[in-house]
């Protein structure tokens, strides 16, 4: 984060004059609010913030933020965001995308953005469905799920965004869920703090075409037992009674109960988001019970735009051409009189 000027904003300052057009009850509303709340905490000037998106319900997001915004074409927002960032590295660039936008048509730009590690904050609204086109399965839809385009059930193995991010050399991966906006706000602030590409997967309920898909861990009955909120340096403990924890068993993470079989809090793994080796994070993103939320991986590395800036200085030092005229007049020339 470069050149921060702290201006006293409130969330309302980031709300545009456009009417929000999502379906009543859509999880996107909570995310919008969480982002608007995160903005004053991020502390960037409004004119230095850019929201870009592709196409999808989620991708309407930029219209609702009173910042610079670009609602582009389906799947291409990572490339657009990259161009924005390289043109003006001082901007705080946020990309909003859906599971279809990011992982179906946009899969290639997605993995390349991750590996290049420019200073982008990518918020992936994963509702495991194509919302805007009215309910076809997406690359994250569960096997067997029946949708308009899979009347006999999905037979494509779904992507897990976290695994794909790690497979693509990701440095920052976090997970949130739409039912917990204040947690989201905190994670977004961390995402912006991280230099390089931050990927935040947000499990988002599409009430119209995929309602309750996350209810195994978001329903009132389940959420206190099935969600594990992690923080760097803290033991990975969860459960209504705070008595469940994760331990390493060979190549697997296992759920144990503190107090049973002689297990104590000290046996529970302490979360290390900063470790470069992604093995632990790979295990964490693969878990389905508990569903792990929070910043899972957060590894510092020089972002693309800074490396580029260094090369500029290097060329400046080495080049014989100080001006364009030097270049145009370079090499072998001759005079005709």
């Amino acid at each position: 984060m470069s050149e921060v000027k702290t201006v006293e904003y409130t969330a309302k300052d980031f709300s545009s004059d456009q009417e929000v057009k999502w379906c009543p009850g859509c999880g996107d509303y909570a995310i919008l609010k969480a982002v608007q709340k995160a903005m004053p905490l991020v502390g960037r000037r409004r004119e230095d913030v850019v929201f870009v998106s592709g196409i999808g319900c989620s991708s309407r997001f930029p219209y609702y933020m009173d910042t610079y915004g670009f609602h582009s074409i389906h799947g291409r927002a990572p490339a657009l965001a990259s161009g924005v960032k390289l043109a003006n590295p001082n901007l705080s660039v946020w990309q909003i995308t859906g599971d279809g936008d990011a992982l179906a048509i946009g899969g290639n730009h997605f993995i390349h953005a991750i590996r290049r590690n420019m200073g982008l904050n990518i918020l992936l609204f994963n509702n495991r469905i194509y919302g805007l086109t009215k309910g076809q399965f997406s690359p994250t839809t569960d096997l067997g799920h029946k949708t308009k385009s899979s009347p006999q059930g999905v037979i494509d193995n779904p992507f897990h965004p976290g695994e794909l991010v790690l497979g693509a050399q990701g440095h920052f991966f976090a997970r949130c869920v739409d039912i917990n906006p204040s947690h989201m706000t905190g994670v977004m602030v961390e995402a912006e703090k991280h230099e390089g590409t931050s990927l935040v997967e947000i499990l988002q309920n599409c009430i119209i075409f995929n309602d309750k898909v996350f209810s195994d861990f978001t329903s009132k009955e389940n959420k206190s037992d099935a969600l594990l909120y992690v923080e760097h340096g803290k033991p990975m403990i969860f459960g209504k009674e705070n008595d469940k924890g994760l331990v390493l068993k060979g190549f697997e993470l296992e759920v144990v109960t503190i107090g049973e079989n002689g297990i104590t809090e000290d046996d529970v793994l302490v979360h290390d988001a900063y470790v470069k080796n992604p093995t632990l994070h790979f295990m964490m993103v693969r878990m389905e019970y508990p569903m792990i939320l929070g910043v899972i991986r957060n590894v510092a590395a020089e972002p693309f735009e800074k490396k580029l800036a260094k090369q500029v200085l290097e060329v400046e030092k080495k080049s014989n051409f100080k001006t364009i005229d030097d270049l145009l007049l370079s090499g072998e020339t001759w005079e005709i009189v």
Partner: protein
Amino acid sequence: MAVEKQELEKVVIKFAGDSGDGMQLTGMQFTGTSALLGNDLATFPDYPAEIRAPQGTVAGVSGFQVHIGKSQIYTPGDNADVLVAMNAAALKANLDHVVKGKTIIVDIDNFKRKDWEKAGFEADPLSDGTLDSYNVVEAPVTSLTKMALKDMGLDNKSVVRSKNMFTLGMVYWMFSRPLDHTEKFLNSKFKSKQIVADANIKALRAGYNYAETIEALASAYTILPADLEPGTYKNVMGNQATAWGFLAAAEKAGLELFLGSYPITPASEILHELALYKHFGAKAFQAEDEIAGVVSAIGASFAGDLAITTTSGPGLALKTEAIGLALITELPLVVVNVQRGGPSTGLPTKTEQSDLSQAVNGRNGASPVIVIAASTPANCFDYAFMASKLALEHMTPVILLTDGYLGNGSQPWKIKTMKELPTITPNYIPEDKKETWLPYERDAKTKARYWAKPGQAGFEHRIGGLEKDMLTGNVSYDPVNHEKMVQIRQEKVDLVANYIPELTVEGSEGGDLLVVGWGGTYGSLLSAVKQLNVIGVEIGLAHFNYINPLPKNTADIFSKYTHIIVCELNDGQFLRHLRGALPDFKYEGYNKVQGLPFTVSELTQLFTKKLGEIKK
């Protein structure tokens, strides 16, 4: 033996050999030296699509043709006056394009039975009469090179690699060129391997001396400097000139330059060139594919750079959807398409003009963009500059068409300095409108909306690919608003006609036949028309650099002729475009789709025949 030096008006030389024989380098050296002597010239490299196609076969032949002259040179020449054939395959591939009676230099070391068989000859071409009507110089180039370098302690591979310098030496002698330019080049190229430099120089001199000695080359020629406009010149390739045009435009506009690109033949050199100049604020971003190339450029344009993307036909196809986005968001963007043979992968290393329809029409919805075309390797500079100027001043995508022939060809360029280039004034919000500004408000004259950049406080706004309200730019599904927006986007492009030069005619200002061309065929068409004018034939050439919109006076000019013939290296795409835009004229087409440029002689014959028919 004293030789008489004969002055020549112009000469075409073709160097041909295996892909590994260094023919491109040899040709470039001859070009460079001749340029320094003040000749006008044009070049055309011609190489196989494979990196190293099989040795000794016709498919593996790499050639470099250079046309130098005292008078102005517009094309690399139809046929060679001198062919250097490093092996039998090179002879086979090029024999049809040597002027009868002229010189062929062969390296007889590569004309053994297995060589000419591999090349596809039925018998030894050196002895079966095939070359009877040529002046054949049989030189054992490989052995002579080996001999010349035998005491240097160099490995055999490096020795054999120097044989191209031996032939270059011979040709230098033939055309009375000095060796110093090439010697300097070799010393610098092999800075770190002095022995290689020395070997090459030794081979060069040996060739020169050999030519002076043998009787086969009975005369040496000279070509006096050309009568070019006064100024400082250098030799440039089209792709290089394109890159420089953008650097100059960005500087002139006070902007950084952003290139989003994905490598593709024959456009990659623009990317390579721009990657060198990061310190001029040029960001050459090699993207993961063509779509990311153009979309990253659109992002950079939104954020305030002069944004460009470079590609060839299949890549333009992929960028289509995104160009529509730039169009509806009305952002400046230049798309360079270095055309090659199509359809599909087609003929990647050959030239063609068959992407015009795609450039003009190939998008969903009503989607007008500016389309312009360069017509010489050197003026790639000017049209890259102009494309940027139009994009920035009119807030619209501009497609710049060049082609493989221009991109890889080279030509002396009268160097322009920054001072003498026109100004570029990006369409920023005027001071007096800042208070009331709306994102889709427009300049009254150009209909271009204003450019507000992220980072500017108070101008936060959102744009996107959905139809937008005429003024606010907010999403609008209103039917009448949509129709108005479709019209205004068209009008904006049409109005560009007020900001581009009028069409000019070369040759006769009216009469029976107007030749119409566009883009890279300029040299051939002009040469043909001039040749005919010289012998008194009345014929004019209207060559287009501005395709969409057309220059305002196009109809005026067309109406001065009774017949119009549109010559293109495609299936008639500009002709159809003209029919659509100016339906009141009758057009005839002459089309060649061989991946090759027009030859001047085919054109003069065509025009002569056509005029004959008209007169009847």
